[in-house]
């Protein structure tokens, strides 16, 4: 343990004692300077299916978390994020991106209203400086609680039953994108009905000191409900099926982009629904209003790559289609006729849909649902093109997610 915590090493999360004991595969992934399990078992399939058919327990502690408090908290947040925070009730959670002055996305995360004057914002990248700079003149404090708060995602159809076993709080009454304070075996936690899988699921926020007993309580209660610790490989497939974008993979955060072309607006990322231009001025609103009027050049859409097309390409070399068994995260050209009309940024074989799917940035000219495009595939070292259909996301959207 000492070695892991020394300055030269990546940090373990507050759950590390538990996750490291289970990680048979020794497949660790880096996430914001921490190590988290890529998969626990030697193959990740069962962890994926736990998300879709029972329940998966996922350590999401490396998320950045900020506590925003003060009489102006709501007003301040309304100024920095694109969603309308004034309408956010206590106990409500908003998914929202936030933008720079040019209306390009800096980061995205969830914003939970924990009290009248108290919010928690999660993000993928550090945002403290940016929040501080924008807080000038507002009666708010922004505290970085990333290190002190641990978080677990409990995702899947049986997650509700498991929570019912460990808490007296009204889990059944907790609606989609709502949160509540609760006790799990006397441990104070916040439970939000949120997640990154597009399934029924919860995220549980806990003081780092109580991380281990929380983990143990969930694992014990979850046994009869098929609870399975799941790593990033399984999560990556689930989030693509859910059409949820990932920073640094599906878009470049505006603050990191070296050239303008790398930046994306919320409209271009399929997040137009989060942009509330009628709420008054906020960071980026002028540029976003203009983009809304003039239309966007790009759109993030789903692609379904046609199996028959893959079969034909592979039959030419005497093979059945060979698909990656884990999600890929590289930029892959997409063509419309002879011209490149976009690029896919993540993709995977969806085990539940039995389809090969991808998320792609497409020129608006080729972004309509049903449009046939071609995605580059490498067949035995040679670049080929497979026919794909533009679709809406999420690819997978079960009723239980909201019900």
């Amino acid at each position: 343990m000492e070695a892991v915590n020394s300055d030269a090493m990546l940090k373990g999360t507050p759950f590390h004692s538990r996750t490291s004991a289970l990680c048979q595969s020794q497949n660790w992934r880096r996430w914001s300077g921490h190590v988290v399990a890529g998969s626990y078992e030697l193959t990740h399939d069962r962890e994926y299916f736990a998300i879709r058919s029972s329940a998966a327990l996922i350590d999401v502690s490396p998320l950045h978390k900020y506590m925003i408090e003060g009489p102006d908290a709501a007003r301040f947040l309304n100024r920095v994020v694109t969603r309308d925070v004034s309408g956010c009730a206590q106990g409500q959670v908003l998914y929202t991106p936030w933008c720079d002055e040019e209306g390009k996305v800096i980061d995205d995360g969830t914003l939970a209203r924990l009290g009248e004057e108290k919010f928690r914002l999660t993000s993928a990248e550090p945002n403290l400086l940016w929040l501080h700079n924008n807080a000038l003149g507002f009666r708010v404090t922004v505290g970085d609680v990333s290190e002190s708060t641990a978080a677990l995602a409990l995702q899947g159809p049986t997650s509700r039953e498991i929570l019912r076993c460990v808490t007296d709080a009204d889990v059944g009454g907790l609606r989609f994108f709502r949160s509540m304070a609760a006790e799990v075996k006397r441990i104070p936690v916040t439970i939000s009905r949120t997640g990154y899988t597009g399934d029924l699921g919860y995220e549980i926020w806990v003081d780092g000191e109580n991380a281990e007993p929380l983990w143990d309580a969930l694992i014990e209660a979850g046994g009869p409900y098929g609870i399975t610790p799941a790593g990033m490989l399984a999560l990556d497939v689930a989030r693509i099926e859910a059409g949820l974008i990932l920073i640094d993979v599906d878009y470049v955060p505006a603050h990191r982009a070296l050239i303008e072309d790398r930046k994306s607006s919320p409209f271009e990322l399929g997040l137009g629904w989060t942009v509330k231009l009628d709420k008054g001025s906020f960071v980026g609103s002028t540029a976003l209003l203009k983009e809304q009027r003039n239309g966007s050049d790009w759109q993030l859409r789903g692609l379904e790559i046609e199996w028959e097309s893959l079969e034909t390409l592979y039959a030419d070399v005497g093979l059945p289609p060979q698909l990656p068994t884990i999600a890929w995260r590289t930029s892959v050209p997409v063509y419309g006729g002879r011209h490149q009309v976009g690029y896919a940024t993540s993709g995977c074989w969806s085990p539940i849909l039995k389809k090969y799917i991808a998320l792609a940035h497409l020129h608006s000219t080729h972004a309509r649902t049903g449009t046939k495009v071609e995605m580059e595939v490498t067949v035995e070292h040679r670049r080929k093109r497979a026919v794909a259909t533009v679709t809406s996301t999420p690819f997978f959207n079960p009723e239980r997610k909201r019900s």
Partner: protein
Amino acid sequence: MSYSAHYDAIVIGGGHNGLVNAAYLARAGKSVLVLERRHLVGGAAVTEEIYPGFKYSVYSYVVSLLRPEIIRELDLPSHGLEILPLESTVTPLPNGDYLGRWADHDQTRRELYRHSAKDAEAYDDYGKLMYHLAFAVKPIVAMVPPDPTSLSPRDLLSLLKLGKHFRSLGATQFYALVKLMTMSAADFLDEWFETQALKATMSASGIIGTFLGPRSPGTAYVLLHHYLGEIDGSFRAWGFAKGGTGAISESIAGAARRFGADIRTEASVARVLVRHGRATGVALENGDEITARVVVSGLDPKRTFLKLIESEHLPDDFVDSIRRFKIRGSSGKVNLSLSELPKFTCLPRDGPHLRGAISISPSVDYLERAYDDAKYGNFSRRPYMDIIIPSMIDPGMAPPGKHVMSIFVQYAPSDLEGGWNETRREAFGDAVIDTLAQYAPNLPGAILHRQVITPWDLERDIGLTQGNIFHGELSLHQLFFLRPAPSWADYRTPLDNFYQCGSGTHPGGGISGTSGRLAALRVLKDWK
């Protein structure tokens, strides 16, 4: 719900093939009615809550060969089809050891190495050959069998294609294929491996559903089936359907309904109406008559041609070959509700082995002895078993903390000496539990409910003649252009407008849906 009195097509039997057939016909715009005798669709692919809170995949229990084009074309995932992986096969041994094969290649190799260093290496070579052979026979499985004696352009063209296809195989693969088609599973595997438990467990896939032992010639080719599943489109389609196998049938029924098909349960067909050598509809047990332009039977060949149709309407030689069609039942099923998980002596703790298949097949001799019992009219005193614990894969199959266990058992001959009755059935169940208790001593004490199914029950409850789970044995003389009868392997029958779509036609066996789909395509092609 009201049903009309005339349809474009009537499908007799709501088993999975009948449903697939109906879905494809409805998808082509035909008005279709499925008639199912029982109160639920699915035939042998049903999930039933026989004991409150515990769901059994009563008969068929795993899915391996459901065709990817059917999953795609009927969009079954949107109708609730979810196939969860069954990742491992563990064979407990009488000496307290075990042989495991796991999802991870390195783990499997290390485990095989523990038993035999040579087998660990041979396993990869064997896998590669099987992969090639599966790729080679794949087109055959997916095609309508041509009649080799026919001179019709369609058959000749089809045979020509087949010949070309085989010529494209390398010599090694061609010879291996011939061996595979003619040898016994045990002999074939002897050429590759030395570990008894490995050979026995692999050869077991060659005897499932047949009235043959691992040393009977012709059992080797079924070894290929396992590999066929791996090269098709929905790789990793080998598994357990969430909600049990009934969920597969429900998803296909859902697709059929979305395309407009009517599905009527508790509607037992008494006979097919025939006029001037042409099927014109069906008469139900309750006396109702429903007419249709085309009638398709999803029932097995004997039931279809010997029970639903008066023999005067069929040519004598055809009736003879259907009479001679081998359809002996050889297997049974035991379903258990359990208060706790079994503790296997070889792996006493809960673990991944309980989420995969557990095979009671310690040696080839063990399997052959089990067959010896059946040859002389008894059920196996020490039977071969293929076990899964569905509640470990899908917790919804049993109340929290409780479990269901599915035990496929062979041999249970349909022609039991002295005949089957309730006492013999329970004696068979006892033999199964006694045998299993040798490997998992806590099992008998954990049983809350037990359902024993023999070929006798399969015939009475779901209409499988002699309780044969494949609608006819999968032996060479009953495959491809010989299934179910020479010259009638293309889903047509000697009666005009009457077709067959059950597992008794090519390629037959298992929840693949191929027969249902190919029969529908044949019907649609003939529709002029």
